[in-house]
């Protein structure tokens, strides 16, 4: 059996010889002089893009260049939630495409990313919030996406340990997407990397882009810390670094980079099943398969590239947690981290085309959400290469 295939049989076979037969999940590729397509950024979006491109355009020479290690950006620093319970036009189809891709992902890429559809429940605490959720839920249903509007009793049955008795903002109900859930975020990056690699994509780590090279207003390649790499097309998928990379191509984006902190607790026995978000404070939570409670809340609120936040938001998020589920009080926060995203006004992801001085250079800025990793890659592929 080729070492590439992952299955219980290959694992058992390897167990008998001390797992000495496994090879690298992806090759640590050296840059070649030129590619048809170069994707800048080895995060979830970049790797997914490379994978779907390579799968569809088998002859294309494709590379992903990453300044550090793959999966080190937002895909490695999030709260692992996947969902398509959005409201505004354009968002639902995008994230729903992603949901559908998540649902068959593991078999497609032969990597268990632990896509776990245990449900995403957004709580509401007033009639106005209920109606806004109804609007959102109806919008999802019009898009063919599953969604239920629960009343307080139904919520109580699902998550009886919320503070129903003494809450400052009592729970009136919730919007539930049962197909929403979580994934093992790092595995998404690794799985796509491995699958892309198996389709011939070169994944080049520790390779920082320093400039673009243009000829007649067309991009022809990139300068990197590991030398010049020619490129027929270049995709940018660098999340919070979008402005920085786009600036090298002379573009100013409608983006600010912000820090969003996330938290995980010590590992405990099963405590909460699906994802719950608080509607009257900044707090959402799930529990990983390893047992840690994974939670987050609001942005720190100021521009930052530092990948870390400050105490006021840590406290704000924990306050939301205690207000919603006061049995969480003695569970200990183990780690906190921050990631920097791009945000645009209105805080919606940006997917747009931008002619570079009339050239055919195309870029996509795909930012913010793990939920969109699969579809971001897919959409990028569809729009860039089917023209």
């Amino acid at each position, binding site marked *: 059996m080729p070492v590439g295939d992952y299955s219980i049989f290959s694992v058992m076979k390897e167990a008998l010889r001390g797992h000495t037969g496994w090879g690298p999940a992806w090759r640590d590729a050296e840059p070649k002089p030129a590619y048809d397509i170069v994707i800048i950024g080895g995060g979830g979006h970049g790797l997914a893009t490379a994978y779907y491109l390579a799968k569809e355009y088998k002859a294309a020479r494709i590379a992903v260049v990453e300044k550090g290690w793959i999966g080190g950006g937002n895909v490695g620093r999030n709260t692992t939630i996947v969902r398509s319970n959005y409201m505004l036009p354009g968002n639902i189809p995008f994230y729903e495409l992603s949901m559908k891709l998540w649902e068959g992902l593991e078999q497609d890429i032969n990597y268990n990313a632990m896509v776990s559809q245990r449900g995403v429940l957004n709580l509401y605490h007033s009639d106005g919030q209920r109606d806004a959720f109804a609007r959102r839920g109806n919008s999802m249903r019009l898009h063919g996406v599953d969604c239920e509007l629960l009343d307080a009793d139904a919520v109580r049955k699902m998550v009886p340990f919320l503070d129903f008795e003494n809450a400052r903002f009592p729970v009136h109900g919730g919007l539930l997407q049962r197909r929403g859930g979580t994934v093992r975020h790092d595995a998404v990056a690794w799985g796509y990397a491995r699958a892309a690699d198996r389709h011939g994509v070169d994944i080049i780590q520790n390779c920082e882009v320093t400039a673009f090279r243009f000829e007649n207003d067309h991009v022809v390649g990139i300068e990197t810390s590991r030398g010049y790499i020619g490129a027929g097309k270049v995709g940018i998928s660098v999340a919070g670094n979008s*402005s920085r990379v786009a600036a090298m191509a002379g573009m100013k984006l409608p*983006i*600010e980079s912000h820090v969003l902190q996330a938290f995980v607790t010590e590992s405990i026995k099963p405590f909460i099943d699906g994802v719950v978000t608080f509607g009257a404070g900044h707090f959402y939570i799930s529990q990983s398969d390893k047992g840690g409670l994974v939670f987050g809340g609001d942005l720190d609120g*100021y521009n930052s590239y*530092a990948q870390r936040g400050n105490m006021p938001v840590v406290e704000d998020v924990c306050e939301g947690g205690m207000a919603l589920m006061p049995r969480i009080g003695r569970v200990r926060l183990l780690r906190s981290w921050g990631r920097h995203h791009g945000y*645009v006004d209105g805080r919606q992801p940006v997917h747009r085309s931008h002619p570079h001085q009339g050239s055919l250079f195309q870029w996509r800025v795909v930012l913010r959400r793990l939920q969109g990793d699969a579809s971001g890659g897919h959409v990028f592929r569809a729009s860039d290469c089917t023209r």
Partner: protein
Amino acid sequence: MRINCPCCGERGIDEFSYYGDATVTRPDLTSPTAMAEFVAYAFERANIPGPHRELWYHAAGCHLWLVVTRNIATHEILSVESARDVALARNANAKGSA
């Protein structure tokens, strides 16, 4: 982070609220390219790591708007000025160069 408010002294950031880029200036309505200028003013941002001039509001204090120069890669605060003073100087300069 702590911001040294010129009116109140040094306070924690939980007293302040953040607004954004202080380097953009509101364009003139009568400019022939007003729409493009307003789009750039409202949306486009340099957003690169390093010192960043930005507006903060002392919401839980004196209600002064501040221009804070802060390294957004390190969070180090390099200077804090009253936004009104900065704006007056900006206007004076604009007049001088006109």
